[in-house]
């Protein structure tokens, strides 16, 4: 029985601790209730939560750089957190926590729109402004989308870059090296790449799924090069598989014969662009994307923009147009040998 008494005492202690704590800090609880009631932000700092798809990869770190810059300019408290493994369900859980903490704006880069939709709707119901950036969410889950590129333009942009580098009349095989078979974004891009490839003379030989694993990406790249003698190009469409594929081409001594293209920040791919393995890197200005997102968040928190607004003033970016509920950043960019050194992100 002794052990049970011990256990009961411990449980009792917890039961006592819970109300004890809430009473401990009256000033703090008052502060929270103040934050939960959504008085227009004036006297206090606006709190904006920026949620990337994956935290800790260079792409989103460069977005964060821009976001920080804007936050300093505007005097905003910026919270930057996201799942390090890119699990969209963890994104949803973070949104739920921010909803309870009562931030003013949540900016979400949904890794899978349907998964986070529920949490985003709840946040809106609690009076928090929700916008999406980098990738769009479902319609009713957000008020604005900071649009840098749609899946359509990314997929077609990749294929066009490859066709331009190879010459439009080139025949032969191409391979896509993706991330996981379940990666929502990559799958969406592949869906738009397929029709674009079908219109060209290139044949999609296979799609490999190495996961977010650099060794597997490198290995898969090596294997497809030995397997398909008529291989002309490889699309590396994740931050891991793009450099992996480029490295595989170099190690197989096929630099220049098998071209690699994909999405990446310029800094990560500079060395491959200079050796000629990669001729085009497709992306947009990620620093500006983060910068614009925070400006939109601020404008929304101070009610500067609402449904129907057509332009927004975004600091050093000047005026940006709003089409419907999409804030347009501009088109996708193609980095080549000539211009890649001008960018540092």
């Amino acid at each position, binding site marked *: 029985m002794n052990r049970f008494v011990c256990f009961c005492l411990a449980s009792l202690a917890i039961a006592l601790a819970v109300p004890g704590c809430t009473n401990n800090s009256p000033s703090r609880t008052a502060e929270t209730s103040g934050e939960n009631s959504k008085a227009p932000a004036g006297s206090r700092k606006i709190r904006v939560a920026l949620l990337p798809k994956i935290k800790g990869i260079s792409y989103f770190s460069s977005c964060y750089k821009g976001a920080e810059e804007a936050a300093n300019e505007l005097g905003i408290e910026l919270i930057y957190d996201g799942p390090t493994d890119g699990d969209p369900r963890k994104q949803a859980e973070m949104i739920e926590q921010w909803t309870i903490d009562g931030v003013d704006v949540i900016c979400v880069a949904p890794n899978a729109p349907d998964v986070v939709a529920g949490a985003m709707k709840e946040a809106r119901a609690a009076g928090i402004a929700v916008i999406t950036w980098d990738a769009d969410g479902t319609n009713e889950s957000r008020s604005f989308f900071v649009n840098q590129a749609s899946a359509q333009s990314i997929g077609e942009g990749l294929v066009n870059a490859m066709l331009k580098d190879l010459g439009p009349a080139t025949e032969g095989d191409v391979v896509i090296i993706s991330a996981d078979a379940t990666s929502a974004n990559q799958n969406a891009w592949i869906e738009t790449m397929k029709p674009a490839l079908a219109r060209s003379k290139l044949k999609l030989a296979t799609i490999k799924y190495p*996961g977010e694993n650099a*060794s597997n990406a*490198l290995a898969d790249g090596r294997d497809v090069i030995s397997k398909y003698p008529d291989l002309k190009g490889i699309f590396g469409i994740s931050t891991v598989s793009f450099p992996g594929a480029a490295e595989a081409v170099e190690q197989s001594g096929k630099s220049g014969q098998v071209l690699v293209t994909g999405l990446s920040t310029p800094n990560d791919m500079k060395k*491959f662009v200079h050796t000629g393995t990669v001729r085009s890197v497709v992306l947009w200005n990620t620093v500006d994307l983060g910068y614009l997102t925070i400006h939109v968040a601020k404008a929304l928190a101070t009610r500067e923009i609402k449904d129907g607004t057509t332009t927004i003033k975004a600091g050093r970016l000047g005026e940006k147009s709003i089409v419907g509920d999409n804030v347009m950043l501009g088109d996708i960019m193609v980095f080549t040998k000539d211009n890649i050194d001008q960018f540092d992100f």
Partner: protein
Amino acid sequence: MSNSQTLTVDHDSRPVCFSTRFFRLIRQREAGLLLLISLTSVVVGIHDVRFFSVDVWRDILVRCAPTAIVACGVMLVVVTGEIDISVGSLMALLAAVMGRMLSEQEFDISCWIGIPVTLGLGTLIGVFTGSLVSMGRVPSIIVTLGLLTALRGLTTLMMGGKNIDRLPEGLTQVAKQGFLGVPISILAAAGVIGLTSVLIHHIPLGRRLYALGSSAESARMAGLSEVRLKLFAFGYTGFLTALATIVDVPRLPKIESGIGSEFELLVVTCVVVGGVAISGGQGRLIGVLLAVVLMTMIRPALTFMDIGEAGEKWTRAIQGMFILLAVVSDSLFSWRQRHSGKVHAA
């Protein structure tokens, strides 16, 4: 280990002498693995003869090397009746530390300092794990599970959201082109396999590890120091993980925080598929090495089978089936294994 059955050491499980003939070495499990490897390669080879080219197999061996190196250490850990599932995260941490020290953009320290420091750090973390297990008496699966998450987080924090690039030219050249035409990772793996095999077969320390795994009680009575043996096994694993990091990571295009993800599972799978008893005291190196080859060759084999876009998504399922096949076939055919498999608790 308190189980009475594990006290009966059967003679087959003892490390075999070098002089023993080849066919005695290749027993049940090894024969099954060899059969699976050759069957797979023949099937793939018939489909596409390019699979047999020297280049492809050279590359497969290069990929085997880090797994084989670390598996040598983890095997010894499992032989003592413990387990180590932290090697993947440890690899990531060591890669990050090594990268930050050596990269031209970061501290730009000489390789002659950076590499020994990396090896030392790996060994140190291994010894730390071992001390928690042997002196702190925390079950090894718990310690290494904790380290698995903690070290991965630490790595991400240390990298600060950036990738590490530009390792010294010399290091990447050696890793990619190798030494006298033989890739450095294969040389390292050969060295480690030789060392481990000598350790198991010819040095008392190796036999003591087996003795400890067979029965901790009798090992203690025979005057063996459990603490020292476990410290050694874990320290060795840490050292080998550092070695694998040094020879394998410079081959990759850049160092990012995801390096070595699921590596620990691959290594443990290889050790288990290779026939090392999870309850300790049994297991041969050759089985583990064959398992490493088998597990590594599945991906390239599937590429050469040209299974198509829909087929690619079955990759993981096929890998799982191979593991299941290797594990189950053995116990279906061998009565002996079935008999000793009764003892579950380690």
